[in-house]
């Protein structure tokens, strides 16, 4: 969007192939290395660096080791609270999920625009969040059917349902269960998209009002700017909360698979 004076708040979500990999393909599918892929790699690398710092395995931990152990301990207590002792085996998965989403959200919020770079939040794309949601849902299905076999379908008939109600309750419960991967993926995508759009719209207000004149700049522009500061802080909070919600819901669903009702 090169039109002067016009700021497109959606442009930040545009995916662009990088390093001339436009036509990179695998089995007929285009797998160009895009700015989105770059941020996925960045999130993975930052997470790797973070966890490597906690691998000193000292009895008396340093600050970094303490921070890493705090995060794993946090996921462990989340799983124990929601799934019970049997939930400990999901620590690697839920930790990966939580930290990957958290870093993706936070890296996308970095003010890299100041250095001429284009920050990108791949969690604002449902093609990315959908993969994670389907992955979580598949694990729930696999664990549920592996542990309980066809008895897993009793999940859709809550305890104490009167017999004549079962034909009605069962489809409702089934639909609400099948909607889970969509709600899981869309919630993250919508939250991240909305926050980034809001920030860009307000930033557009600041720039356009300042261009329109000193009076507009001082009134509309400064008010928008102050609002942006608050909303930026809120977005950091949302970044953490959405990662937490994703991990929390995954562990709640895992509880259904592990323990039924």
């Amino acid at each position, binding site marked *: 969007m090169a039109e002067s004076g016009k700021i497109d708040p*959606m442009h930040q979500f545009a995916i662009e192939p990088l390093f001339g990999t436009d036509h990179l393909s695998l089995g007929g599918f*285009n797998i160009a290395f895009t700015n989105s892929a770059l941020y996925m790699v960045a999130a*993975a690398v930052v997470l790797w660096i973070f966890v490597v710092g906690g*691998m000193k395995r000292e009895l008396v*931990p340093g600050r970094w080791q303490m921070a890493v*152990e705090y995060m*794993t301990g946090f996921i462990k207590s989340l799983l124990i609270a929601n799934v019970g002792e049997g939930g400990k085996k999901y620590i*690697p998965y839920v930790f990966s999920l939580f*930290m990957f989403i958290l870093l993706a959200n936070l890296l996308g919020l970095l003010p890299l625009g100041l250095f001429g770079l284009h920050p990108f939040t791949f969690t604002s794309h449902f093609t990315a969040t959908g993969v994670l949601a389907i992955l979580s849902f598949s694990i729930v299905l696999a664990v549920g059917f592996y542990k309980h076999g066809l008895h897993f379908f009793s999940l859709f008939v809550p305890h104490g349902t009167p017999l004549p109600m079962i034909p009605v309750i069962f489809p409702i419960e089934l639909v609400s269960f099948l909607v889970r991967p969509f709600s899981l993926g869309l919630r993250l995508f919508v939250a991240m998209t909305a926050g980034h759009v809001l920030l860009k719209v307000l930033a557009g207000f600041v720039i356009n009002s300042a261009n329109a004149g000193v009076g507009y700049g001082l009134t509309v522009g400064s008010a928008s700017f102050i609002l942006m500061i608050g909303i930026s802080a809120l977005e950091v909070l949302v970044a953490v909360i959405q990662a937490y919600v994703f991990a929390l819901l995954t562990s709640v669903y895992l509880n259904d698979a592990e323990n039924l009702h």
Partner: protein
Amino acid sequence: MPQIAQIAETYASQIFWMLLTFGFVFFVIGLGMVPKVQATADARDAKITGDLDAAKAAFARADEAEADYRARDAENRAAVQATLARAKAEAAKVAEGQLAAADAEIASRIGAAEARIQAASQAAMAEIETVAAEAARDMVARISGVQASDEAARNAVKAALAHG
């Protein structure tokens, strides 16, 4: 909205890189590193609980030792007190014996002394009789010129002394 507008040309790339990066995160970090971090934290927790238990046990042992010490202390005190009482009783008995012996000796000495005094006073009395009889004979001779016999004078003196 690029998320929807670009979906046809980007979905494959998005899914591919997502699976690749999240696969790396899950297999290398989640499965490879997180269990080690967690094991370190668990080992530390176990060590802390173990140390606390050991400290608790040591406390209990110390309490036990103190109770034991107190019991033995009380026992020793009682034994010492008994010995002391016995010694006191013995000493009292010995002192009593010595006192009785001393009393007896003192009494015998007093008896002897009294006897000596008695003898001395009798001797003195006899002396006085002789002297008095002598004096009475002299007085009789001077007044009447009669030589009173020694026996008569002595009898007279005795009668006078007896009457006071």
